[in-house]
């Protein structure tokens, strides 16, 4: 018997008792909805807590400390490595710090800036990676910079903070910089100006102090253009006033801007939290020393995994309850159609065909239930995510974070729930189907079944 004929046959049979069919599908759909919605809370809480509260970047970022000396001669991370990272699958962005090798004597409105370093970053990559600002915006023009949150913090002799002044007061102000360079045997300075457009977020680790000046590649090139050395590096002299020859010799020894650069604080940011593990493995295979917070999140994720399994288990019970309805419906269907089954067997229908027809029927009920159940589950999920924050605000006067989701339905949860519904439906249709194959031809033809 052809599959399309089986489907046609089953559909014809299902139409014989529409009310009963509807009620059975309804019960299955309710079970399926319950399963999905229940489990989606586990997924939602996990995503919201791990991804949002811990911080998206922290979860997805993989820190690279260099290369494994067993696999590489030179353990620095170079341009070609950065390029290679960018081409890896599941990489959202690659960020780095590229420090300026001289003191630029930064001042704002004549006041000296207590920065501890000036570094060049790839602002475009940082934006993608989720570079957080506490105020202002990311630079767009070459002369725009971002300053560290703690850049105006005062310190005592022991290095303990004594007072904090708001760095955001400096927004849109001009920072003057001085680039030192040697030319024609003389030490000279060239002034530069930069506009402060952003202040970084307070570092997540409370003991960290961010006193960095962040500039784009445009400013770096300008500095290098002035000094003629890579990262604005200056030669070091033992004596106070070196001769012109000594200066030229020392300059010649310094690397040029065109030479290969190595980068610090390289981070490879994965496109999604789930991809981090694979990414870390890939990078380790390629011989890089890495660290990612995922290594530490294992415990939390394990806990959520157990919770999700528990919720799916409870949800499956609902589907099982619905399966009693399917069992009942199918048993009644077999009884009602005993005569037809007998006739079919009498003229040569193989018992396996009969069994297939009834299994297909219960599978169709399961499938219809799963489809309707899924649609409703998505609706409920949307309603919960939209409604619950409002309710919480009303009754508990507590604000829920903007992108906090109570219920998240990943596609594989849908697939799992549909699979469970279908499986349970077929399981509960199995005994009635078996009973159908055992119907005795002669009793059926005599109409006494």
């Amino acid at each position, binding site marked *: *018997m052809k599959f399309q004929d089986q489907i046609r046959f089953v559909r014809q049979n299902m139409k014989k008792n529409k009310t009963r069919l509807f009620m059975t599908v309804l019960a299955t759909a309710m079970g399926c909805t319950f399963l999905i919605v229940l489990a989606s809370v586990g997924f939602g809480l996990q995503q919201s807590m791990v991804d949002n509260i811990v911080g998206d970047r922290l979860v997805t970022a993989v820190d690279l400390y260099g290369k494994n000396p067993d696999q590489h001669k030179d353990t620095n991370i170079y341009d070609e490595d950065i390029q290679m990272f960018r081409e890896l699958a599941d990489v959202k962005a690659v960020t780095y710090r590229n420090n300026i090798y001289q003191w630029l004597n930064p001042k704002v409105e004549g006041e000296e800036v207590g920065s501890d370093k000036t570094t060049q970053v790839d602002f475009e990559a940082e934006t993608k990676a989720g570079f957080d600002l506490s105020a202002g915006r990311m630079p767009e023009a070459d002369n725009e910079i971002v300053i560290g949150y703690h850049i105006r913090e005062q310190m005592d002799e022991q290095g303990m903070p004594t007072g904090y002044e708001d760095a955001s007061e400096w927004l849109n102000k001009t920072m003057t910089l001085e680039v030192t360079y040697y030319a024609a045997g003389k030490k000279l300075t060239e002034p530069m100006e930069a506009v402060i457009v952003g202040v970084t977020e307070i570092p997540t680790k409370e003991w960290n102090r961010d006193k960095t000046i962040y500039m784009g590649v445009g400013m770096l090139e300008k500095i290098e253009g002035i000094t003629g050395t890579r990262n604005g590096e200056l030669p070091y002299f033992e004596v106070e006033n070196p001769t012109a020859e000594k200066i030229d010799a020392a300059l010649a020894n310094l690397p040029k801007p065109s030479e290969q650069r190595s980068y610090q604080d390289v981070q490879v940011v994965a496109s999604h939290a789930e991809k981090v593990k694979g990414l870390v493995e890939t990078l380790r295979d390629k011989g890089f020393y890495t660290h990612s917070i995922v290594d530490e999140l294992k415990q939390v994720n394990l806990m959520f995994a157990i919770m999700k399994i528990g919720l799916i288990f409870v949800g499956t019970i609902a589907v099982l309850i619905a399966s009693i309805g399917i069992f009942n419906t199918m048993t009644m269907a077999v009884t009602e159609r005993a005569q037809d089954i007998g006739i079919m067997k009498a003229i040569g229908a193989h*018992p*396996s065909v009969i069994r297939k027809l009834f299994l297909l029927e219960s599978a169709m009920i399961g499938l219809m239930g799963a489809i309707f159940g899924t649609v409703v589950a998505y609706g409920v999920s949307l309603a919960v995510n939209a409604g619950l924050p409002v309710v919480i605000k009303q009754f508990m006067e507590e604000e829920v974070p903007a992108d906090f989701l109570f219920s998240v339905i990943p596609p594989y949860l849908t697939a799992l729930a549909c699979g469970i519904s279908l499986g349970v439906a077929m399981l509960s249709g199995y005994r009635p189907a078996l009973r159908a194959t055992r119907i005795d031809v002669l009793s059926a033809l005599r109409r006494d079944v």
Partner: protein
Amino acid sequence: MIELAGVSHQFRIGKRGKERVVPVLHDINLKVEKGEIVAVVGRSGSGKSTLLNLMSGYIRPSSGEIRVGGQNVTKLDEGEWANFRLANYGFIFQSFQLIGSMTAYENVELPLVLKGIGSGERRAKVMKLLEQVGIAEFANHYPSELSGGQQQRVSVARSLILEPPIVLADEPSGSLDSENEKTLLTMIRQLNHELGITFVIITHDEQVASIAHRAIRLQDGRIGGLA
């Protein structure tokens, strides 16, 4: 074509432990040749239906051997019997045994569907046969909307749709009036003549027996005499 050798059958009735054995057929030996119309006659309760049910594979003999078309079918299991029936037999029943939720067309089509034949080919075959048995205009009627004679034509069409070599019929005219009976018998003769189909027909009707090449008389589960 059909050969029974030393076939006996007894029914077991009653509960397990307190079973009672009802012997129905005793040492039946018979042979139906290809292209024959054989009538099985005998009083009610003599075991005619039981004999046909054994040939159909609906029940198994208590002892003896059954061969159909040279194949020993005594030990076929249920599934094998189903396939065997589909491939070799057409059935006509006294009470027609049409599926009530299917139209005349769908009832006739059913064996083709079971055999896995595509719907295009089915349509042509079914319509042609419905035409031949003279109920093409009732193709979309349900059995409950047809007279007894029309239903029996549907059932004849269903038995012939796969062009089986053998047709088994248990009192095919038992529910028909004499006019419809006549038409049915003419049809059977014609099919036998034109297509060489072998018929085994159970009847207690003299008229039916008259179209047969041969009649087998059953008496208390034994083959009595030849008519």
